């Protein structure tokens, strides 16, 4: 069995080595993220069977959990790490073709570090270590948003940076308070100290508030998500894909991990549910009348985050595994969408939806990928979005409460709006633009390069596979949900 710490150590080492490799050749340096993510992919997937039995607790420095930093490779962590590695792999391959100018080596290093940060966040069992990895994630994404150095990118990066730093500062305050109260940083230890009081006392609640508000910035729940549309729409395509596919999911993971495992705070669940619905509605509505396609996708991410948070906030096995499934399917689909959009924008030179006309002809495969991604997001079978939405709605209806009935109506309303704007784009891509003779199209093909196409098709295969046969993943996610719901098992697993 491989030690899960390698999931972090290897990419980190590779990232550090990249500048050296770049001295030899830029070309080699470009392949470093691919190698790192490939490694992570293999390792995390191979770890899944063993963590399903019992989580692997990895000590660093050889010190037992409350004293040293430990990694908790539970089902949830490894699953998310696998998703991160998978999407990261696809996007890094895409980056090989897409990232052509500028400081390419630096881009690849930062990219790899971003994903390492994300992996670290989902694996670590120490709250401050989580914060550190979270910062790795955030800071590298600040920088990457501004990668192209254009007007919008820099503006978005600045805004993202300001909001992100406020968020992480608030989170750190929360951590400080927790440390001041309990004198420990290990999440399981904190959780044990908090116990199962049900209702938190004021101090703990305020610490929780600080942490939710802080980490919530990256999770992009409603009032905290103003950076998202800017950053996602202005970043280069692979970064948008990663931000949407991975970064915000990691944010959600942190919030959920803190609320569920560390605090076990049922009073927060309802808040999550409500925030989720509000976020969903606001995201979808804002996306509804967008003309900028990337901005639209970004708002759609907001909406999806809302859906996920809503699902997770239900705190039932069905709800959580539905939410986690949605995390996975959204990660796949949204990164696919951003990747496809990247080359479409590159070819058409504009982000307006109207400029997509005739794209179905010019870049048929890319467009097909886009369409399927969009369908998956809308939740149409047989694509990955369907089981997720289905499970979420099922869980919500299974609650059999009037409040949930009302909320689920709102959620479904949001889904309808989402369908509207996605179908509009699909139409724009396929059915607008100049009519052409059937054979004339062949000369005007401007398909994306192979390196960009391959990851898209790879994601596509995953989307369809998940949509057709989601059961293994669902079974995996059920044990993830169990991990989140039974915080005492978690505590026992870590502290013995």
């Amino acid at each position, binding site marked *: 069995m491989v030690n899960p710490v390698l999931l972090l150590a290897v990419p980190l080492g590779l990232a550090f080595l990249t500048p050296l490799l770049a001295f030899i050749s830029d070309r080699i340096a470009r392949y470093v993220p691919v190698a790192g993510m490939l490694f992570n992919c293999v390792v995390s997937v191979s770890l899944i069977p063993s963590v399903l039995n019992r989580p692997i607790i990895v000590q660093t420095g050889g010190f037992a959990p409350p004293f040293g930093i430990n990694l908790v490779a539970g089902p949830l962590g490894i699953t998310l790490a696998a998703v991160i590695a998978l999407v990261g792999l696809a996007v890094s391959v895409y980056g090989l073709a897409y990232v052509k100018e500028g400081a390419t080596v630096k881009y690849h290093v930062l990219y790899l570090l971003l994903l390492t940060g994300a992996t670290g966040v989902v694996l670590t069992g120490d709250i*401050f270590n989580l914060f*550190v990895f979270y*910062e790795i994630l955030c*800071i590298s994404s*600040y*920088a990457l948003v*501004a990668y192209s*150095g*254009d*007007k*919008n990118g*820099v*503006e*978005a*990066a*600045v*805004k993202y*940076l*300001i909001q992100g*730093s*406020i968020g*992480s*500062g608030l989170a*750190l*305050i929360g951590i*400080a*308070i927790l*440390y*001041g109260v309990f*004198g420990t*940083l290990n999440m399981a230890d904190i959780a044990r100290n908090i116990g199962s009081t049900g209702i938190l006392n004021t101090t703990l609640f305020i610490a929780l508030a600080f942490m939710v508000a802080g980490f919530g910035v990256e999770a992009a729940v409603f009032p905290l998500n103003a950076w998202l*549309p*800017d950053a996602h*729409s*202005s970043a280069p395509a692979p970064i948008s894909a990663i931000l949407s596919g991975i970064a915000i999911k990691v944010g959600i993971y942190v919030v959920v991990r803190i609320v569920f495992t560390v605090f076990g705070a049922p009073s927060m669940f309802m808040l999550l549910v409500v925030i989720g619905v509000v976020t969903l509605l606001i995201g979808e509505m*804002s996306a509804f009348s967008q003309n900028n396609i990337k901005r639209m996708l970004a708002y759609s991410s907001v909406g999806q985050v809302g859906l996920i948070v809503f699902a997770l906030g239900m705190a039932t096995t069905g709800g959580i595994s539905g939410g986690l499934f949605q995390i996975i399917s959204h990660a796949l689909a949204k990164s696919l969408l951003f990747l496809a959009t990247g080359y479409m924008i590159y070819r058409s030179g504009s982000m307006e939806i109207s400029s997509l006309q005739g794209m179905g002809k010019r870049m048929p495969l890319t467009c097909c990928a886009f369409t399927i991604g969009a369908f998956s997001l809308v939740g149409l079978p047989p694509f990955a979005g369907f089981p997720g939405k289905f499970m979420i709605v099922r869980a919500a209806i299974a609650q059999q409460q009037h409040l949930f009935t009302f909320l689920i109506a709102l959620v479904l309303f949001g889904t309808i709006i989402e369908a509207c704007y996605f179908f509009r784009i699909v139409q724009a891509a396929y059915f607008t633009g100049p009519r052409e003779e059937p054979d004339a199209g062949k000369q005007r093909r401007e398909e994306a390069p192979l390196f960009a196409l391959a990851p898209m098709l790879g994601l596509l295969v995953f989307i369809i596979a998940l949509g057709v046969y989601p059961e293994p993943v669902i079974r995996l996610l059920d044990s993830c949900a169990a991990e989140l719901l039974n915080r005492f098992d978690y505590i026992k697993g870590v502290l013995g």
Partner: protein
Amino acid sequence: MSFLFENSYYIAAVGLILIGLYIMAAKKNLIKVIIGLSFFETGINVLLIAAGYIRGGSAPIFSHPDMQAGKMVDPTPQALVLTAIVIGVAVLALALSLAVRLYEHHGTLNLRKIRELKW
């Protein structure tokens, strides 16, 4: 008065945090906002340190063989603060570089005017 005196670290920390947040929320010059960020982070660092302080403790270094563990302050927050400072520096550096870039593009650092990305 003695309350203020006794809790001066906390007061300073909270004060710095609030001032920093205020600057970030209300000021429009990016440089000022970055300074506010710096305030904010400093405040948090102070808070961390203060949280780890034990009255009458010494620095946790066994420079003399007769030093006692019981008389030392908690070393953990100090390690944390070290990390936090470094992170703060990193963010600050990045913020400044972005500010340079932003100025090149917009010719201003007034955040109320840099609003091309909206809606």
